[in-house]
């Protein structure tokens, strides 16, 4: 019988490489036919509340969620797209209404929304983002923070027209 030695370093290395594979898959979705659409992440839609209000800031703020929204194929930035954001933060649990808010992308397809500090929940410090407005296919993202101490997080959407 072989006993596999599992230590923290090995586990982190394996976990990290899985994470890196997932992240690089998202950052480099360029294929022969142009920019590939971002697939929804597993668990991305958990505790989603459709129709979160568009806000200037979620709660008292202190943490920045940002990213970009582009069109699949030609990669053109998409302005005025509504992105919904929620997370378990210092001000509320993931499913609670005060933890949810939405923002619109600017003319360059970028969005940025201030929200309360994300704290680890279910074993990982992570946020949730959704594009769910109908014009393009719905996408749910669930980015994970490198460190629970980080005060910002990014997520990027490449949307496919319906």
């Amino acid at each position: 019988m072989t006993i596999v030695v599992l230590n923290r370093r090995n586990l982190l290395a394996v976990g990290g490489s899985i994470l890196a594979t997932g992240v690089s898959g998202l950052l480099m979705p360029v294929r022969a036919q142009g920019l590939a659409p971002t697939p929804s992440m597993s668990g991305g839609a958990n505790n989603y509340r459709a129709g979160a209000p568009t806000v200037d800031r979620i709660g008292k703020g202190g943490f920045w969620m940002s990213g970009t929204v582009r069109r699949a194929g030609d990669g053109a930035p998409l302005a005025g797209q509504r992105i919904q954001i929620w997370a378990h933060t210092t001000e509320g649990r993931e499913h609670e209404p005060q933890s949810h808010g939405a923002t619109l992308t600017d003319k360059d397809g970028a969005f940025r929304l201030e929200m309360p500090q994300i704290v680890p929940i279910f074993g990982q410090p992570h946020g949730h983002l959704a594009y769910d407005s109908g014009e393009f296919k719905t996408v749910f993202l669930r980015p994970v923070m490198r460190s629970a101490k980080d005060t910002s997080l990014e997520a990027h959407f490449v949307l496919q027209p319906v």
Partner: protein
Amino acid sequence: MALVWVALAAAICVPIAAAAVSPLLAWRDPVYILACFAGIVALGLMLVQPLLIAGYLPGLSAHRGRRTHLWIGGALVVAVVIHVGGLWITSPPDMIDALVFASPTPFSPWGVVAMWAIFAVAIFAALRRRLGIRPRTWRIAHTLLAIVIVVGSVVHGLLIEGTMETISKAVLCALVLAAAIKVMTDLQVWRKRAKLRGESIARQ
């Protein structure tokens, strides 16, 4: 003699105490906190189990050790049920993802596999006389499941970023792994029955 007990108590209580002062608790509700600590207690009980069955704890007779191992096995099932139940109440979609192996978190499948192995041992233990399972078959089955439980739980625990303090968690995980390996090696669970019976009679 007392030293072994003090060391055991410290190995289990220090991680629990460290988790009890985690800043994350401020943003969690009671059900979630209960679920977290049920998981930590379950990991602690996993350290006691092999020590009991191998008779490494001074002052406990082989018979008492065996009886206590059974009771703690039952407690382990209860702790896991509280852990999973509490997490389910906290966030049903995340728990369902974990149970159906669709979770984005790498630690979830390890925990779920360990959970099923714990349930399997409990069911096996409850029914083995009724089903007439031979002692050697039981011993090997329990050992294999124990390997799954220990490895699954240790990996599950180490990969989680949660209330447990990193160093005390790593030490407890290392001890759980070491105790399981030591006891399985010492008891030579894969040996033939006749030899085992001779040894256990000699020990008693």
